[in-house]
């Protein structure tokens, strides 16, 4: 950004010898290719990123159905938002589904990664297999899961019936709905995280393990005392990524349950509520207000995450490098 001062200097402030002027002009032109080279990103970002962000702020102060003139309503939309039980419910739903999906997912992914790390055969094939769900079309997936979770005629209930466990109203009971969505997220992201964990495991220094083995540590001790602490940065990365994804849960709910989040609104996540308000009910002003409400929640969450990452590391393993 220092280069901009060149461009902004008033040319007529002090009379300068013509030679110096020419040199300045040359210098200005010399930087042009670089500016041109980086400009596409900034132009696209300004048009498709920055402008919509500020426009949505403007929109959140209006009442607008998408066709007629906008009507300025001040902070009315936000006042309504604060007392909107549906909005608060949607925050709760999002967080509940996030916890319900992230905890089992992390454990599962870690187990899979440990398995992959120690197995010798079919390593590549297994890795691809675990990664497949992540690149499967989420809409196609939701259709399949719709048939699996279907209350009366779903495969899952049929299997539960076989074992005499009875029917679970997956898509009608509030907890059933959240479970179903969480299972879809787990199915989709476990493989992805397992691959990340695997990469983390393979980067761990082997000498620490050798030392542990020499000292007679059991595999369980090795796991909890060495693997987990050393894997902490990777675990945090996965946690941050899952928080980013978790706060944006949308497609699973929408395809499985429709724009209104299913019975009791149990599958109504923040983003789904925003989408339904803006694009199904065409209440764009309030939709924008919800989007800014989501923004605040995300900021709070980011602060929480940041604090978590910044916390001094406890239970560190002293490696050779540190000892030196």
């Amino acid at each position, binding site marked *: 950004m220092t280069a901009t001062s060149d461009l902004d200097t008033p040319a007529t402030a002090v009379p300068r010898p013509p030679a110096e002027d020419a040199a300045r002009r040359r210098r200005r032109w010399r930087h042009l290719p670089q500016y041109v080279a980086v400009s596409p990103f900034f132009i696209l970002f300004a048009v498709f990123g920055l402008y919509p962000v500020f426009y949505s702020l403007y929109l959140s102060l209006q009442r607008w159905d998408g*066709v007629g003139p906008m009507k300025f309503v001040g902070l009315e*939309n936000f006042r309504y938002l604060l007392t909107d039980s549906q909005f608060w419910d949607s925050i709760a739903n999002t967080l509940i589904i996030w916890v319900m999906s992230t905890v089992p997912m992390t454990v599962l992914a870690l187990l899979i990664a440990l398995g992959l790390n120690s197995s010798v055969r079919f390593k590549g094939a297994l890795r691809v297999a675990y990664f497949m769900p992540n690149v499967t079309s989420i*809409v196609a997936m939701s259709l399949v899961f719709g048939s699996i979770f*279907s209350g009366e005629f779903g495969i899952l209930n049929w299997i539960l019936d076989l074992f005499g466990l009875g029917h679970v109203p997956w898509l009608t009971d509030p907890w059933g709905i959240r479970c179903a969505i969480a299972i879809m997220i787990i199915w989709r992201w476990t493989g992805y995280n397992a691959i990340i964990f695997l990469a983390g495991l393979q980067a761990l220094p082997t000498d620490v393990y050798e030392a542990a083995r020499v000292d007679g540590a059991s595999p369980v001790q090795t796991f909890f005392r060495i693997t987990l602490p050393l894997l902490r940065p990777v675990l945090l990365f996965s946690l941050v990524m899952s928080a980013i994804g978790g706060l944006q849960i949308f497609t699973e709910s929408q395809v499985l*349950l429709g724009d209104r989040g299913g*019975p009791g609104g149990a599958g109504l996540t923040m983003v789904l509520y925003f989408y339904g308000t803006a694009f199904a009910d065409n209440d764009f002003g309030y939709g924008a207000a919800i989007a800014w409400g989501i923004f605040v929640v995300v900021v709070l969450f980011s602060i929480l995450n940041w604090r978590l990452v910044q916390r001094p590391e406890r239970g560190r393993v002293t490696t050779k490098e540190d000892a030196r």
Partner: protein
Amino acid sequence: MTANPGHLTFWYTYNGFSENVLKAARKRFAADKFVPSQVSGDLTQRLLAALAGGAYLPDITMIGDNISRYFGDSDRFVNMNDHGARELAGGYLPWKWHAGATPDGFQLGFPIDIGPAALYYRHDIFEKAGLPSEPDDVAAAVPTWEKYFTFGERIRDKLPGRYLITDTKTVFTYSMAQERRKYFTPENTYLDDQSHVRLAWDRAVEAFGRRLTAGFGGSQTAGGQSVDRHAAWNTGQEVSLVNASWITGEIKQSAPGTAGKWRVCAPPGGPGNQGGSFLAITAACPDPQAAFDIISWLQNPANQAANYAEIGLFPSGPAAADDERITAPDPFFGGQSAVRVFADIADQVKYAYFSPWDITLSDTYTDELTNVELGGKDPERAWRDARNRIERLLRRQGVLS
């Protein structure tokens, strides 16, 4: 500015128009450079974006049954009465024609299809239960919802494990479809007296209380169709349903094994309409007369009949509903002419104003009904919650003060 200057662009939805008719139209109106363009995704969103931006607008567009949302901004469209619409009005159902006009008579929409609601039922199961099973007899046996419910209980007594009707939402939606007033006056004043809504609500709750609804909530396919309901059609667990004509295709497609076992007849509670669409010309169109000529040709009786034959859009013109190509006996309905049944119902439908908020309000009520049906919520509390939510919403939108 239109999307394609020099051409007449027509936006339509997936499965929204017969491709054969469009192919013929393209040839016929080659001089006008008629370009039909199927919008992927949600047409309303595309149209709103184009209207808001004032650019890339279509010349002709399809509009759904909530056409009234554009009435306040009719200056963005063309009044078809200026181009000879009035002379053609007689060829279409008066209530449908009326629904395309603003309160001050600006003809914004030209009728495409309608959704007359009939009682679909399983002839074989009614017969097995020893109850009236021929269409005329069934219609005579269930003139009211009350009689229909009693009829359903008799079926269940004979053949346990079956349901009379899909869910509380169906009962509520089609009860409301039969009402002369819905939620607003044509001047967009909220009807404070919602006793007719309460009636439909109570009826839905009653059907549930008498264990006549299947209540397959939740699971649905991409098009919002219920997976469980499809299964119930195949197994014969859902013995009947009140629905608009457009469900015929879904039943045929998802339960082909039940071909010949279904019949349709006049529904309990009287004639009603649910759904339907219009064609509109945007103000951006440089040659509205040419656009209107295309529209009136697209919606002539022969083409409306083709629209029904190919994609199940029920014609809004009585002449098309009389076309032999579509009134022929339908083997899926045991050789019955389903079109004649629907046409009879459509003839008796009365105009009812469909406001820009109707869909949201109806959804709010049916959401709460679903909570009663599937979540065990107290009906009285659910009613209060629905009313509160609606009043809050309308106040936020400035409709109520």
